[in-house]
């Protein structure tokens, strides 16, 4: 397997970023990593994952979709789209890599979202295998193997060397583009590291969380469950869970009048909000119970119903660590599961 020694990682980053924009997770503060545009000398974060997910790269929090100019009765629509530049995201975890597949199902199915597709086409996703999962991780519940992540190219660290495995055409091109810096290496220690990580995954507190009680065919019994009242009781409707979630995909479209023109924006939205899908008569979900239920029903029932059984959660654990009142999808699943 091709590898590079840990000491030369930054040389590799320098080489990649000389050709295209590179993003890597860096520590902003201890235990608070974020993806940053690589600049020479930046250190790859040792944190397990970033606070914000990597979905921003393809589905940014806000984007300007189009501009309109009004001239009497004429409306001129300005398509302000530009071809995205090629970029590489390095160090995406297996959970987030899977989330791109979930977002693809939404944005790349007909009618294709060309804004999203543009970025997706130009982005190369380089993933990094997990060796030290956190107690909040439960990706394996959704059939994700964190020791062999998806993505265009997967990277594995054995403590001394980074090994590269291309998984798609784009990944092969990526590895070729850096091949002069890589060398053939012995991956025997790597197998040990992977085995060790798999054993840890089995011992995680959420390792036995099951999806058996959920899925597209469980609509009525779950929707009508009397547990939602208790579960949603303390929810403050903030939307933190939806904004840190790699698979939350809802957006709103807003027009702003700048005085000279109209600017149309798309921005993340949250089903936890009172103005979510607000129509002439108001929000169809009038209580926080209904809004709360929507988030989890979407991930555990509606999404699989429309996507061949695939769940809309990747078990990244972000909503577990960031909800201000510590309510989350795991507590919901445990409360609703049929034992």
């Amino acid at each position: 397997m091709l590898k590079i020694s840990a000491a030369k990682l930054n040389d590799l980053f320098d080489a990649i970023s000389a050709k295209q924009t590179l993003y890597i997770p860096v520590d902003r503060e201890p235990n608070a990593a974020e993806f940053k545009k690589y600049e020479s000398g930046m250190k790859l974060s040792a944190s397990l994952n970033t606070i914000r997910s990597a979905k921003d790269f393809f589905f940014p929090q806000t984007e300007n979709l189009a501009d309109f100019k009004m001239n009497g009765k004429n409306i001129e629509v300005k398509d302000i789209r530009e071809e995205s530049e090629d970029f590489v995201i390095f160090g995406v975890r297996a959970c987030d890599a899977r989330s791109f597949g979930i977002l693809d199902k939404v944005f790349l199915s007909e009618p294709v979202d060309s804004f999203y597709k543009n970025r997706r086409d130009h982005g190369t996703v380089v993933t990094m295998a997990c060796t030290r999962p956190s107690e909040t991780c439960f990706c394996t519940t959704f059939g994700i193997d964190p020791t062999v992540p998806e993505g265009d190219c997967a990277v594995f660290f054995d403590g001394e060397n980074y090994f590269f495995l291309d998984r798609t055409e784009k990944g092969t091109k990526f590895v070729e583009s850096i091949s002069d810096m890589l060398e053939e290496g012995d991956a025997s220690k790597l197998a040990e590291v992977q085995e060790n990580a798999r054993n840890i995954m089995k011992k995680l507190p959420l390792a036995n969380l099951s999806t058996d009680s959920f899925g597209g065919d469980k609509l009525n019994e779950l929707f009508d469950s009397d547990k939602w009242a208790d579960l949603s009781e303390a929810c403050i409707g903030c939307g933190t869970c939806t904004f840190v979630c790699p698979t939350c995909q809802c957006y709103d479209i807003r027009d702003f009048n700048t005085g000279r023109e109209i600017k149309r924006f798309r921005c993340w939205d949250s089903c936890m909000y009172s103005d979510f899908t607000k129509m002439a008569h108001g929000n169809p979900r009038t209580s926080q119970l209904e809004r709360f239920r929507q988030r989890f029903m979407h991930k555990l029932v509606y999404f699989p119903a429309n996507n061949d059984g695939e769940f809309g959660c990747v078990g990244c654990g972000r909503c577990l660590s960031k909800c201000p009142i510590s309510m989350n999808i795991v507590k919901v699943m445990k409360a609703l599961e049929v034992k």
Partner: protein
Amino acid sequence: MQEAMIKRAKELLADGTVNRVMGWKRGEFSYDITPAVFETAEELDAEFVCDDLTQANVSKYLIKESRKEGKILALLKPCDTYSFNQLVKEHRIIRENVYVIGIPGGPKIDIEKIKAKEISGILSVKNEDYTLKIETIYGTETMPYYEAISGKCENCKSKKHVVFDELIGEDGDVLESNRFEMVEKLENMTAQERYDFWRDQLSKCIRCNACRNVCPACTCENCVFDNPKSGIDNKAAADSFEENMFHIIRAFHVAGRCTDCGECSRVCPQNIPLHLLNRKFIKDINSLYGEYQAGADTTSRAPLNDYSTDDCEPSIVHERGVE
């Protein structure tokens, strides 16, 4: 202490003084504690928790709870009693419908501080004589208790309960805290440095609204930022300064009503030190209008809602801005 709380809560449920208890429920791990309403002794026995990691201020929930049938028992830490009082003063909580037990405050432990020490896979946290013993998937770790103290407890302003019907444990005093230290540091920066500091901090904001929604001073039925008719709702931030405006405006809205409970900074997923904005307002109010602590009582008039002829002139503020 937790046992004493459960015992007393059960008594009050049994003798009909209250029909519900506002407290906290344990979760999957030792730290994911959720505010909850308990209705029976069995529920209390099974799930009630109030330990070193129980930080949430439950006052805001009492707005809704005090409008329900019957009386509810609320267990309030000293800082929570200020929030409670302020909400009573603003006619948001119906005082008669809440039975308040003052409980001891912190210093509480913040799991984020433990995680910041690169301790991960946390299974349990125990306080053994002010050393934390942390069981993790990767083995046992220890760290001094004081290094894991929650930000909101670091500069505790008061150990005194400003409102209660009874107490569990002892009442304390208003403390001499150094809570304005960082504000002073910011004041002593040049305007550019200060601007850079805030731009750097606020640019981390993901506008998740946790700070606003958790804030006991933010109780508007429809926040201006959620109301399309207000003209300033900014769900889509057209430029990176809009999130900054959200925070500046919010700080103005809670000025004179913020009790410095620390919840905003505690819940921020991006660790933005929001309390510094509010403390700047508190410090200014103290120096311009005389010492004032929001929530300390329910009768005094708040400086920004009151007029007296010796109020400071707007020019004072103007001069400062110029300098």
